[in-house]
C-alpha cells in the first residue's frame, strides 16, 4: 500500500518572542541590530531566540494504519499535527498528504458564546470542513452523542463547561475524513463520555480509518495504535511496535528523572525540620530504583532539625511520570506518631508489596505541622520509582494499580450459593 502521509526531512523553527506582542519598535530595534552586525562583518545570525520544534523528521503512515505519537511536552507532537492539518507550514522539508484530513484537535473550535447550540453545530462543523448537508444528516446523532438534549437551542454561553466540551467533541467525532488526527481528546469529559469517545476511536480503528493519535495516556497508545513514533526534542527517537516503544519511552523518562536516591543541601536555617536525603531500597535494604510489581520497596527519608518539633506529619505522594497525581498517604492516616522529635533521624515508608502497574512514578515528600496543617518542608520530585513487569494485553487493565482481586463464577460457589446478583456485587 502507498503511504497516505509522508513527512520528509521536516523541520519547523519558531522564533521565541521576548516580550508580549511584538511591536513595530521591536522590529526597528532588531533591524538596527542586524544592520550593526552586518556592518561589523559579523555574519552570524542571532541564535538565542530560535527554537526548533521539529528537526529533520521523516515518517510515513499507510492507509488504514493507526499511529500514535508520544513524547514529553514540547517534543513536537502537536507541531506535527499542526503541520499535517495545514495550520502552519514547515520551515523546511516536504509533507504530502493523500486524502482529506480531519482534526479532532479543537474541541469547540469557532463556538460563539452568543449563538445557540444548534447554530454552533453548523458553524463549528463548517469550520472543521463539513458540508451543510452532512451536518444536517448527522445533526440528530451529534446532539445525542453530546447529550445536551433540550439545551440545543440555548446560547452556549449558558452551557456548563462539560456540555460545551461534549458538544464540541460530538461535532468533531462526526467528521468523516480520510485521515483523522486526534490530540489528547481523551482527557475531556466525565467517565461515561470518555467511554463514548474511546468506543468511537475503537470503531474508527475497526473501520480501517487512518488515524494519528497524540496522547499522554500511554495505555491508549498501546490499545489503539499499531505503530508508535517517539519524539524527543523535535527529533524521532524511535518508531515501531507500540508496546516496545512505550517501554523504552518509560525507561528513558525514569533516566531523565531523579534516580533512586537524592540529597539536598539545607536551606537557610528558617525551617525547624527538613528532609535531607531520600533513597529507594529493596527488601534487602539495597538501593535500587527498578522494581517488579509484587516486590517490596522502601522509601527512606532522612531529616534534619533546627529545633525540636512536636509530632511532625510526613506525607509521601506519587505522581505518574506522565503527569497525573496517583495518590498520597501521610503518617497521620495510620495514626503513626513520631512524637516529639529532638534530633535528626530516619523515617521509612514501606510498600509491601508494590502494587503499581508498569510505569514510572515520581515520589514527592512533605512535612506538616500536626496542629496547624501548615507545610514546613516540601521535597518535590525526590526519587523515581520505576515499576517493570510483563506486558499487559490490550484492554486487560488500566489505571495505576493492580489491586488484590479474584474472579469467581456461580460454579465456584458452594452448592445453593446465591445467584448472579451476588456474583456481580462481589
Amino acid at each position, binding site marked *: 500500500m502507498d503511504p497516505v502521509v509522508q513527512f520528509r526531512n521536516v523541520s519547523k523553527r*519558531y522564533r521565541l518572542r521576548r516580550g508580549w*506582542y*511584538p*511591536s*513595530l519598535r521591536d*522590529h526597528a530595534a532588531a533591524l538596527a541590530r542586524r544592520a550593526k552586525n552586518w556592518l561589523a562583518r559579523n555574519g552570524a545570525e542571532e541564535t538565542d531566540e530560535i527554537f526548533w520544534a521539529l528537526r529533520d523528521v521523516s515518517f510515513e503512515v499507510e492507509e488504514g494504519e493507526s499511529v500514535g505519537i508520544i513524547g514529553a511536552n514540547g517534543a513536537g507532537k502537536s507541531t506535527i499535527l*499542526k503541520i499535517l*492539518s*495545514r*495550520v*502552519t*507550514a514547515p520551515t523546511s522539508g516536504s509533507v504530502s498528504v493523500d486524502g482529506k484530513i480531519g*482534526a479532532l*484537535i*479543537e474541541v469547540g*473550535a*469557532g463556538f*460563539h458564546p*452568543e*449563538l445557540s447550540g444548534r*447554530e454552533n453545530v*453548523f*458553524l463549528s462543523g*463548517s*469550520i*472543521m*470542513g463539513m*458540508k*451543510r448537508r452532512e451536518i444536517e444528516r448527522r445533526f440528530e446523532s451529534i446532539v445525542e452523542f453530546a447529550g445536551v438534549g433540550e439545551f440545543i437551542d440555548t*446560547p452556549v454561553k449558558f452551557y456548563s463547561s462539560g456540555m460545551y466540551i461534549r458538544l464540541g467533541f460530538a461535532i468533531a467525532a462526526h467528521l468523516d475524513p480520510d485521515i483523522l488526527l486526534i490530540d489528547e481528546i481523551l482527557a475531556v469529559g466525565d467517565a461515561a463520555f470518555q467511554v463514548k469517545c474511546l468506543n468511537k476511536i475503537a470503531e474508527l480503528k475497526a473501520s480501517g480509518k487512518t488515524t494519528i493519535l497524540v496522547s499522554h495516556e500511554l495505555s491508549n497508545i498501546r490499545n489503539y495504535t499499531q505503530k508508535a513514533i517517539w519524539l524527543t526534542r523535535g527529533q524521532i527517537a524511535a518508531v515501531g511496535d507500540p508496546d516496545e516503544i512505550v517501554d523504552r519511552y518509560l525507561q528513558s523518562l525514569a533516566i531523565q528523572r531523579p534516580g533512586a536516591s537524592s540529597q539536598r543541601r539545607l536551606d537557610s536555617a528558617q525551617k525547624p525540620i527538613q528532609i535531607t536525603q531520600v533513597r529507594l531500597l529493596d527488601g534487602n535494604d539495597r538501593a535500587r530504583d527498578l522494581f517488579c510489581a509484587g516486590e517490596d520497596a522502601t522509601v527512606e527519608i532522612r531529616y534534619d532539625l533546627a529545633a525540636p518539633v512536636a509530632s511532625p506529619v510526613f506525607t509521601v505522594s506519587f505522581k505518574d511520570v506522565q503527569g497525573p497525581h496517583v495518590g498520597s498517604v501521610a503518617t497521620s492516616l495510620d495514626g503513626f506518631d513520631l512524637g516529639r522529635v529532638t534530633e535528626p533521624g530516619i523515617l521509612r515508608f514501606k510498600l509491601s508489596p508494590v502494587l503499581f502497574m508498569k510505569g514510572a512514578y515520581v515520589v514527592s515528600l512533605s512535612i506538616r505541622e500536626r496542629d496547624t496543617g501548615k507545610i514546613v518542608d516540601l521535597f518535590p520530585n525526590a526519587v523515581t520509582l520505576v515499576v517493570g513487569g510483563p506486558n499487559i494485553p490490550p484492554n486487560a487493565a488500566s489505571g495505576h494499580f493492580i489491586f488484590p482481586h479474584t474472579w469467581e463464577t456461580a460454579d465456584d460457589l458452594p452448592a445453593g450459593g446465591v445467584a448472579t446478583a451476588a456474583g456481580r456485587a462481589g
Partner: protein
Amino acid sequence: MFCHLKELYEHRELILSLGLRELKARYKQTVFGISWALVQPLSMMLILTLVFSRIAKLPSDGIPYPIFVYSTLVFWQFFTLTFSQGTTSLVGNASLVRKVYFPREICFLAIFFSAAADLAISFALLLVLRAYYALPLTWNLLWIAPILAVQVLFTLGLVSLTSSLHVRFRDIGHALPLVNQIWMFASPVAYSLSAVPASLLPFYLLNPMAAIMDSYRRVIVLNTGPNLEYLAASLLTAAVLFGIFYPLFKRSELHFADVI
C-alpha cells in the same frame, strides 16, 4: 491566483457560516436588532447636516444636504466597516487561526458578507430618502453595481495588506480609528468634489476612495454618469493593489498561526 479562488469556492459554506455568525452575534441580545445598522449612517447624516449645512453653510451642488451626504455615507460606512473590521478579523479569529486550517482571507470575507447586510438595509433607506426628496429613478442608478465592485476590489487589496500586518504588529489596530477619520475628510463624503481646488485635484485623486465616493453621488443624487476617467484610475489602483497584496497575503498566511 486561480487555485486560491478554487479553494475559496470549496470553502463557500464556511464564508457563509462565519458571515452569519458575525451578523447574528452582532445583534444578539439587542432589542432593536439589525435596525442598529441604520443608526450609524442616520446619526452621521444628522450631525453632518447640522455642522456643514446649517452652521458652515457648505454648498452641496444644489441638492438638499441630507440626501447629498447620505448617498455617500451609506457606502463610506460599508468601507469603514469592512476596512477596520477586516483588518482586525484575523486577530479576532486568532483561536481559529491557531487551530484549524482554512484559507485565511475567509476571516475578512466573512466581514464583507456581514457588512453587506448592513449596507442593504441602509441602502433601502437611501431609496426611501430619494423618493422623499422626489429624485427620479433613472438608469444611472445601475452604475452603483460597478462602482461598488471597484470599492470592494480596492478594500480587498487594502485589507489583504493591513490584516496580515495586524497579525504581526498590533500597532495597526490602534492607528485604525485615526486613519478612518482622516480618510473620511480626505474623501468627498461630507462635501462635494467640486469644492476641491483644481490645483490640489491631481493629488486629491490619488486616493481611490475620492473618485469612488464622487461617483456614487453623481449617479445617485446628481443623476449623471460617473466621471469615467477618475473611476478608471481608481479601478486601476485597486487592481494593482489587489494584484500585489493578495498574493503576498497568501504567502504570509502560512505562518500566521505561529505569530498571531
